[in-house]
């Protein structure tokens, strides 16, 4: 059965950042130089081809874009300036919008104004909500104690409600990724045992991102890992120890220490990324989509307002600390609410999931090939197609 070519897809992808994919003439240099590309997952060449031809279903079923960590070697080696690295990045954005069942992700990627508008809207709502709660139940001049403007116990509950909502959204989208790439993919017939065998990859990839370390330059991996670990540390502190870090006057030293290290890591990572995107010296930082900037700017202001709030609190300026806290919350809530399930941040789920599913695909293809070799009828054409 012939599959329909869609010459228009390439135009659609342009809004996601794939500007030069049409220049590719399939020499394969990009795949040859890539540390992650192998016999099973041939990229960037193959996804470049699928994109040029507009074979949407095939791209949707492909894990390739998530196996690329954008070291930029391919773009450097490309004889035609087709920017395969940036194409893979754009495909990740496009796939994110496809996995998202709400359609919000797609809206954000094609219109930065919509994204900024949504961030502002959620920020205003958050601000109004917390101010209302604060004025009704506490005193804006009190940071701690029974009349505290925003008591940690209340924020703690709010945090957990938000965490559950975000996790649910992300889980549904991750489920759709599994559905598109593995269940609906006619070329893959995975075995249950493979799922169990590869399960360890989920936490391993999440915490070490060791696939990223296989790129030729390990620096970006190290910086990304430090940023991610800082974020996770901060997340653990907030989700489990909010009382200990928010309330004074005394804060136990371990919370202080972890908090400061995490803050330093976040600031360092974000500023480094921003400087890189301004300097545009490294291939993977040459092209910035609007969504990249929105994400970085949000992360920076969230970190900075957190620092300001902490400093004001430690200085005993409770009124100012409360105002800073409301501002901080009005930034952090829209950032998490919109970026985690619909934006760039969703890759925290898709990256480890892709590594996990890739192992399952690999396993399935090997067994399909073996059964073909053993003369099992029926599987031949599918395995050949996969090969």
């Amino acid at each position, binding site marked *: 059965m012939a599959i329909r*070519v869609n010459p228009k897809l390439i135009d659609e992808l342009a809004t996601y950042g794939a500007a030069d994919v049409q220049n590719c003439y399939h020499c394969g240099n990009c795949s040859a130089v890539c540390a992650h590309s192998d016999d099973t997952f041939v990229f960037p060449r193959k996804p470049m081809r699928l994109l040029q031809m507009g074979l949407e279903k095939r791209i949707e079923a492909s894990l390739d874009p998530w196996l690329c960590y954008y070291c930029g070697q391919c773009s450097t080696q490309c004889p035609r300036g087709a920017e395969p690295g940036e194409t893979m990045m754009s495909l990740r954005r496009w796939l994110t919008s496809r996995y998202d069942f709400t359609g919000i992700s797609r809206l954000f990627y094609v219109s930065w104004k919509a994204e900024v508008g949504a961030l502002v809207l959620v920020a205003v709502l958050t601000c109004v909500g917390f101010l209302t709660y604060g004025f009704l139940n506490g005193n804006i001049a009190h940071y701690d104690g029974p009349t505290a403007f925003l008591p940690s116990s209340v924020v703690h509950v709010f945090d957990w409600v938000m965490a559950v909502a975000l996790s649910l959204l992300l889980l549904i989208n991750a489920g759709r990724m599994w559905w598109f790439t593995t269940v609906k993919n006619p070329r893959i017939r995975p075995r249950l045992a493979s799922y169990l065998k590869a399960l360890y990859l989920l936490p391993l990839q999440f915490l070490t991102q060791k696939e990223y370390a296989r790129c030729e330059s390990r620096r970006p991996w190290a910086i990304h890992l430090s940023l991610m670990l800082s974020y996770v540390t901060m997340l653990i502190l907030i989700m489990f120890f909010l009382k200990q870090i928010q309330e004074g006057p005394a804060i136990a030293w371990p919370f202080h220490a972890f908090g400061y290290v995490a803050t330093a890591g976040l600031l360092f990572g974000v500023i480094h990324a921003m400087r890189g995107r301004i300097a545009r010296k490294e291939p993977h930082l040459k092209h910035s989509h609007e969504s990249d900037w929105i994400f970085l700017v949000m992360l920076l202001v969230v970190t900075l307002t957190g620092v300001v709030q902490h400093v004001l609190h430690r200085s005993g300026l409770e009124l100012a600390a409360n105002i800073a806290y409301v501002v901080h919350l009005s930034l952090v809530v829209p950032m998490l609410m919109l970026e985690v399930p619909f934006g760039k941040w969703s890759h925290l789920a898709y990256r480890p999931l892709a590594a996990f599913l890739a192992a399952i695909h690999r396993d399935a293809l090997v067994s399909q090939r073996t059964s073909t070799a053993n003369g099992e009828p029926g599987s031949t054409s599918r395995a050949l197609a996969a090969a």
Partner: protein
Amino acid sequence: MERQRIGVFVCSCGTNIAHHVDVDAVCESVQGMPDVAIASSYRYMCSNPGQEMIARGIQEHQLTRVVIAACSPRMHEKTFRGACKRGGLNPYLCEMANIREQCSWVHSDRLAATEKAKALTSAAIRRVRHHEPLESLTAEMCPNTLVIGGGIAGLTAALELADAAHDVFLVEKTERLGGNLARVDLTAPHLDSARDLLTERITRVRDNPRIKLLLNSELRNLVGYVGNFSATVRTNGASGAHEEKTVDVGNVIVATGYQEFDAGRVTHYGHGKLPNVVTSFEFERMLRTGRIETRDGRLPQYVAIIHCVGSRNKEFHAYCSRVCCMTALKYSHELKSANPSCYVSDIYVDMHAFGKGCEDFYKTTSEVKTLFLMFDKNERPVIRKAAPSDDCDMLIEVNETLSGERIEIPADMVILMVGMEARSDSGEVARLVNISQDRDGWFMESHPKLDPVATTTDGIYIVGTCAAPKDIPDSVAQARAAAARILGKIAKGKIEIDGVFAEVQDERCSGCRMCNELCPYSAIEFNLDTRRSHVIPAACKACGACVAACPSGAIKGRHFTVEQLHAQIEGVLL
């Protein structure tokens, strides 16, 4: 027979000959032969010292004949004839024994190869005794030129010759000049207008008093030989009447061009059945009129271009037509500039972008978002009508080799890149001017690399696409090359004719005319008054066909006499 003093010179050719032939043994073996005055060997006989050795040998030993055992005469006979001339000997008194191509290069047994070299050398010695001193002849060179075909190649050649103040008869079959190029809109890769290229040439041709333009005309007959042809041209008048005239020319340039492949022969492309499947020339017409639209007048949203229609396929033509790839890229540019929102699929077998600026052109075509789709030439795309629910008129199904996917491509218009083929009247032209055709009908050049515009018939040149598919720059270059060759000959004033040719001995000729028809070069005339055949030395290539065929033994091949050949055969056998 009078005594001769024969000098034998054996060449080692570095190790080319010496590796498998004992050169000194060859010298020794011939030293005792009757009439051999000297026999010596040298590392490179063709080098300056080697040639000097021959010239000095002739003078010191008063040699009357020279034998050189070395490479093929095709390689260095001219060189050694020159050396003999410098030594004061008639150049035709020299004979070569080929102990390289026909001996050392093809044998591995050194002893046997040496024996063979000895036999070949002794054969040459026996033969050279019978050589006669010959003189080359000269003939007049008529400075007029006949150019057949008024396309870009013919126009260019005519202008080049006329600009050098020589008369040209430009014969064009149709009623207008410009040939196939006049049917084209822009040209690849610089997107220059074909009309601009042609208008300047045509105006200059029409204005040049040296060029006698004969439209609606055809060559009917050509007799004579280089420098002295007589051409009969028929001009068709408006009312079916025609007049013939005969002109004297020294050279002929054939620039008859090509014809397009008939797309209807590839039945499953549906040309002639599906309304929006057009050939590249039909599309050129749309471009020239500025209306790119489907049969029912809509602007096509999807345009597909299929390459290699009739080319690179055993079923039709195995060769590549060379210009279609770049023309297809040109269409993509023209389509995108006419309608930026249209999508162009370029369905190709291999992209041949070999010319100057062509690779860049290929890249810029990618940049305007042309979708390149590759197929295997043995598995052609299939075009079918789309369903009413589709947003396109047709669907093209093909196995796409770069992705390995079986795909269908939407199309509102399909352009078939039809290849070039030899004109249907090329056989007639070949017969008239006495040149050969290859298996595809293209005219054959004298040497594909070293002599690409000359033919095996002296004075007949082939330029442009009548010899093989080629683009405008190559056609123009060939036209100018042929003109330069002719101008060189005209400048010399006379043509030199090699002393080796066949001669009819009148007293033995019975006038049977068998040789007249046999001669592949039309070099034998029949004199109706004396009723004897006569060889035109300038046209004769000394192939010997007439000598062998003559039932009366009346024809003598100069430099290839019966005595010479018998002596040579004896030399090999004894």
